[in-house]
């Protein structure tokens, strides 16, 4: 019934438009000099609005941005991003100004004559070559960095962790003392063997799986981590924004990504950008009467995966190597875990 009501309202709006337009002069259809003048000036006003918005966003939304990269590999990402952003910022500011200024400056008048100017190879060459040169720099740095991140073949003694995704939770398995993961396949999923590990594989016995209840993924600071991603059902994407890390989890194949944590969670919490951002968040939370927020690294799902996609996350805690070792030695191996059950 309500839908009918809305449709009725829409009809009413339509009818009132009809009435308004009856009054409006439908005879005026082509821009006159007066229109050109008004609209040209409006373009200037609009550019003022646009500039105000751009500057406002750049200054006041700065505090919302992700803090500096918490992984060593991500430093160059931040660098490259800053270079790119400054570049596009400058071009944006200039181009919009020129566009709107011309729209104002050359607004038509009856007595004016436009300049017949059809071509200039020199100008065209300039604006073909300039972007090309700039792009060479961006592409060069970008590809170098891409290679830097994605090439995991030269990682020395990395910690290998399998991140496993399913609707709608994350699980993780560490490779154990041999630092080699046992095979996994959905056919082995049974009971507490939720990640489908093939226990007949010798590498699997010493693997350590995180507790299924509120799993927290611990990572050591300063050691290269190589993640192997698997998915149980649909596509997911393991997104760890603070580390500038993301990789899709694809059913039927293993994907990988690696980085070296640069700060522990504790160090991150006192980092100035994080402190500023947390203060803003907590001010909002206080107004709503919610518990204060404390910074944590996070792994979230960033590929649409079903109804509860928006809640799929896992906490990540980065600690010093010694503390990690202590925590790690306390975790039961899969062999122990599955044998008891």
């Amino acid at each position, binding site marked *: 019934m309500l839908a009918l009501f809305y449709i009725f309202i829409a009809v009413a709006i339509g009818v009132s438009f009809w009435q308004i*337009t009856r009054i409006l002069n439908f005879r005026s259809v082509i821009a006159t000099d007066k229109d050109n003048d008004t609209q040209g000036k409006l373009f200037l006003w609009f550019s003022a609005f646009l500039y105000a918005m751009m500057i406002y966003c750049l200054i006041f939304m700065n505090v919302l941005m992700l803090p500096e990269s918490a992984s060593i590999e991500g430093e160059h990402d931040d660098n490259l991003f800053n270079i790119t952003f400054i570049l596009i910022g400058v071009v944006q500011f200039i181009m919009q100004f020129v*566009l709107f200024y011309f729209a104002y400056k050359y607004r038509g008048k009856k007595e004016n004559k436009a300049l017949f100017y059809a071509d200039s190879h020199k100008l065209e060459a300039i604006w073909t070559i300039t972007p090309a040169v700039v*792009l060479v720099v961006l592409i060069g740095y970008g590809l170098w960095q891409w290679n830097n991140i994605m090439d995991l073949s030269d990682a020395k003694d990395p910690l290998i962790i399998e991140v496993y995704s399913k609707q709608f939770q994350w699980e993780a398995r560490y490779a154990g003392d041999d630092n080699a993961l046992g095979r996994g396949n959905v056919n082995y999923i049974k009971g507490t063997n939720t990640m489908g590990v093939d226990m007949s594989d010798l590498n699997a016995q010493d693997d350590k799986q995180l507790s299924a209840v509120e799993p927290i993924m611990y990572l050591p600071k300063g050691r290269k981590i190589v993640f192997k991603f698997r998915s149980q059902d649909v596509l997911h*994407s393991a997104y760890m924004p603070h580390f500038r890390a993301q990789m*899709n989890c*694809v*059913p039927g194949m293993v994907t990988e990504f690696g980085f070296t944590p640069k700060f522990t969670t504790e160090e991150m919490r006192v980092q100035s950008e994080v402190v500023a951002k947390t203060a803003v968040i907590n001010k909002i939370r206080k107004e709503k009467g919610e518990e204060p927020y404390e910074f944590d690294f996070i792994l979230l799902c960033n590929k649409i995966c079903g*109804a509860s*996609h928006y809640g799929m996350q896992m906490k990540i805690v980065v600690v010093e190597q010694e503390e990690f070792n202590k925590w790690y030695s306390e975790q039961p191996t899969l062999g122990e875990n599955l044998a008891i059950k």
Partner: protein
Amino acid sequence: MSDHHHKETFVTKYIFSQDHKMISKQFLVTGIFMGVIGVFMSMLFRLQIAWPEKSFTIIEAFLGPHQTDGVMNPDMYLALVTIHGTIMVFFVLTAGLSGTFSNLLIPLQIGARDMASGFLNMISYWLFFISSVVMVISLFVEAGPASAGWTIYPPLSALPQAIPGSGAGMTLWLVSMAIFIASSLIGSLNYIVTIFNLRTKGMKMTRMPLTMWAFFITAIIGVVSFPVLLSAVLLLIFDRSFGTSFFLSDIFIQGEVLHYQGGSPVLFEHLFWFLGHPEVYIVLLPALGITSEIIATNSRKPIFGYRAMIGSIMAIAFLSTIVWGHHMFISGMNPFLGSVFTFTTLLIAIPSAVKAFNYITTLWKGNLQLNPAMLFSIGLVSTFVTGGLTGLVLGDSALDINVHDTYFVVAHFHLVMGVSAILGMFAGVYHWFPKMYGKMMNKTLGYWHFWLTMIAAYGVFFPMHFIGLAGLPRRYYTNTNFPMFDDVADINVVITLFAILGGVAQLLFLANFFISIYRGKKAEQNPWKSNTLEWTTPVEHIHGNWPGKIPEVHRWAYDYSKVDEDGEYIHGEDFVLQTTPLKDGEDPS
């Protein structure tokens, strides 16, 4: 109406018409209808984003079983996002834009009596109509419409166990798209053949208006890439219904292992984006073509760098078919491929920059007639630049890692292809309305429509970049599970308010459009004092377009404000129809 052509009944004139002008109007009105649905959906899900899980009677009214006490269900949120994307990209900006203006302008601007095959043209529209109907029907199936995102990645789109929308809703989506693709292919082939074969005497390829070049190249990209999507759709239908494993492997869902072995979702992603990326240009190039024509006409100047414009359209078209992998940098494909796609992707910046600079130079020292169509064209250049620049971030694989699938992407593509193409479409409607309906649209409403749309577009999509840079993923029903995103909640409210403003502003357009059809001022033959051939046809539509012989063309389309040595207009006015022969001693441009 002239009476020299054969009899028409109501059905042959208005319904199963083979006249390209009528078919173009059919495309436009259907596209507008679908656009209303698509935009309305975005209003609904923007309400949920701004005020998560707050009750709205409008949601209660329209979402029926897919809401609880005025709060939409998470499934339905995803469905709305999915169908919004599908409708806007395919039904509005592909069929509504390209279908309308290719049909209207190709025969008129090259000097042909009609399309090469009027019958196929009619079939093209009716297939589009059927696919629209199927898509609309899919909104009403019990488990809800397709909800795996407009990219319908399997396995989510293949398994009803994974999400309810992947049942009958998805089946109808696939059927609708298969029909749509057939429509698009038939249309595109017709456009290509017509432009190749039916140009009038003197209309060399290098004398065609840029609209023709844009539509021509667009049709070629469509023919090259749409069949690949069709194959993806068919294979997905096989996987869903006949148990094949093209895209599925090793799946355990709801307590059981499925039989699928050896397929890969990454294959689907390749097939999808092999169309999906060129699709961006299928949407955008016609808008750029329309804009080129309108900017030149209303600047009273030749378009700057005509040949460079053609070259950049071709370069964009070519590059667009070899960059699809930039949607898949982190899909698990080989990182080396990522490098290749980064390289090809960033190259697109060069022809795009050339186009933007050429538009701006065309304005320089012009005598700008700021008609609504011209405002929309200038607006397009603005959003094309803003949106295009952030492409440098997304196209760079190393940077894409961290912004992939965040709101940064949403902001980028909405500005560069969504808003830009829509602005181009509006520009086209305002400019060629007199040619379509023989009436003029009201300019005051047009001005209001433009400024409100512009403000809303930037108000929605500019701040959205920053939400993305805060790391917020797209397609989240609510962000309340993540305290780290609490600080973007206010911005989402502002964005939604701008979105509602933008949505309401479109009512001005609808009112202007439909009222002008009936009450608009009768159009003159050449209201914008334009050079191109369509303005030599009579205002009242006739079959065959020109009453007598088809006119002969003697010059290119851009002889605006051409003067002799004394600074006087060579032909007495600041425009010269393409049919006007060169004077003695006049330089051909």
